[in-house]
């Protein structure tokens, strides 16, 4: 039934070696960015969204669950981290922990509400839950409504690394991204990940084999939300603000779009997709609302012509899993 990733090639040791090589190339390229003169802010922002999209992809690509409310994790972690840093004066590492923990808690609560419903209903419920949070944040005093939390101090990570220096911040964000990426990669290739894939392919059969599928899906949902929150906490240091945009439904849509463009259920797809979409927004910023229209056109084109996404098409051509 699930035609989401109908061309997934089974993992072989060979494929795993390929993937580790691609990962190494990606890590080296990203580590070299500060020496190239590329605007680091852009890459840092893209890295945060790449991690976010990877976390989202863990859920849809491997669990078959389309969350249309993933912005709630980004925004919640962002608000909590920003508040912890600015008002409570916590050091950066604890600010990140606070934001990520808040996202994990949110995952636990919203997962409990939504995970029992499948397919389309799950998407609508997550969308509605994130809209609920949007209105709560709009009214809550600590988020400062439309203004958001601004001028967040970056501080010294572990008391050593001065995050107000762009290069230092860049490497901190990069390490965070790579760590999150590896965690997701490890999860996908663990026995847990195999069970997730079996649920995606045929949930009734997985149940008949004795797996408590709701528990597996719940765990994947919480993990995905936590990592999305981690990305949101990192983003606070890059953007130095936390605002309502990050909780809005259009942000959830962008996360979906990034993953779709890169390739649902591919390992590197969400990273490529995030860079493509962020770059597009950067270059087309002068076109105003046409950016929304272009994003819509990309959505339509991807669904109708291009369901494997960029990396998925490439993997199909090379007959590899990427």
């Amino acid at each position, binding site marked *: *039934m*699930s*035609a*989401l990733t109908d061309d997934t090639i089974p993992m072989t040791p060979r494929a795993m070696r390929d993937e580790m090589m691609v990962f190494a190339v990606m890590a080296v390229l990203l580590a070299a960015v500060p020496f190239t003169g590329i605007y680091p802010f852009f890459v840092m922002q893209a890295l945060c969204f790449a991690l976010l999209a990877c976390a989202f992809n863990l859920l*849809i690509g491997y669990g078959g669950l*389309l969350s*249309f409310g993933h912005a709630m994790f980004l925004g919640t972690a962002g608000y909590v981290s920003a508040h912890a840093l600015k008002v409570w004066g916590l050091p950066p590492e604890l600010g990140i922990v606070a934001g990520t923990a808040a996202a994990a808690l949110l995952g636990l609560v919203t997962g409990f*509400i*939504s995970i*029992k*419903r*499948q*397919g*389309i*209903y799950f*998407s*609508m*419920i997550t*969308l*509605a*839950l994130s*809209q*609920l949070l949007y*209105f*709560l944040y709009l*009214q809550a005093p600590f988020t400062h409504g439309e203004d958001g939390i601004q001028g967040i101090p970056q501080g010294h990570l572990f008391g050593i690394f001065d995050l107000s220096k762009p290069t230092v911040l860049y490497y901190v964000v990069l390490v965070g991204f790579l760590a999150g990426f590896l965690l997701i990669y490890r999860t996908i290739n663990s026995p847990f990940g195999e069970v997730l894939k079996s649920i995606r392919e045929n949930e009734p059969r997985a149940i008949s084999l004795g797996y408590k599928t709701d528990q597996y899906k719940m765990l994947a949902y919480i993990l995905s939300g936590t990592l999305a929150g981690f990305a949101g906490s990192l983003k606070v240091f890059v953007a130095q603000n936390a605002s309502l945009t990050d909780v809005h*439904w259009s942000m959830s*849509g962008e996360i*979906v779009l990034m993953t*779709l463009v890169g390739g649902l259920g591919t390992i590197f797809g969400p990273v490529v997709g995030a860079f493509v979409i962020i770059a597009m927004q950067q270059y087309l910023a002068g076109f*105003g*609302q*046409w*950016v*929304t*229209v272009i*994003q*819509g*056109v*990309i*959505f*339509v084109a*991807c*669904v*109708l012509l291009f*369901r494997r996404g960029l990396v998925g098409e490439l993997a199909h051509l090379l007959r590899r899993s990427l």
Partner: protein
Amino acid sequence: MQALYAQLLVGLINGSFYALLSLGLAVIFGMLNIINFAHGALYMMGAFVAYFLLNLGGINYWWALLIAPVIVGIFGMILERTMLQWLAGLDHLYGLLLTFGIALIVQGVFQNYFGSSGLPYSIPDQLKGGVNLGFMFLPIYRGWVVVFSLVVCLATWFLIEKTQLGAYLRAATENPTLVRAFGINVPRMITLTYGLGVGLAALAGVLSAPINQVRPLMGADLIIVVFAVVVIGGMGSIMGSIITGFALGVIEGLTKYFYPEASNTVVFVLMVVVLLVKPTGLTGRAA
């Protein structure tokens, strides 16, 4: 007490829109297996078509009530023929993604030309003013919206549940292959169904134009509330959609009176409560 009745009326009006929209979503989902994310954008298009008809063609509200749903319905059928039909057999999620993209395009184009502010659309002369009911003052237009929506909802219910055409439709929802074998053109029925659902959304848009102004994003937030309504009521029954829509509108209106801070979240909170008590939604069908 005056304020309470006024909010109840506002609730009934919102409930009319919820009912018309969730009805359309349910009809479309039944035939196409697609959750139409573009529903809010098409609702907005209905209001804009009415605005254009009045300001460019001098065509009044009453004709707009008929013409706008037809125009938007045809637009919807073109969407179905050119794009949605290719999704048959794929995972449901692709339909959601495709229609989300369509919504972004439509809303983006309108926003580009009309900004985000509202355009005025005046109440037709025949429905201006109000009547004093003794316990409250009833603006005639608002009363009209509630009554007319209710009539349209019931007519749709009658069409689907009680007529020959509706019987074909329900049969094709259950088993399209078998219905085709009887010589009924199911693809054409699917197109018409999408047109019908979309037309209902456009009709709601025309009705709301004099009340809420005509804005490019008027459907964007509304559709998310309607999704919550659909989750609560389920998409299994037409009457269920109508009743849930009106009921949630009224509850929202009451919240506006008793605890205004929660008025824009109450439907979502109710959805959470329903899901916790009965994870399959009120109609009890597993998704």
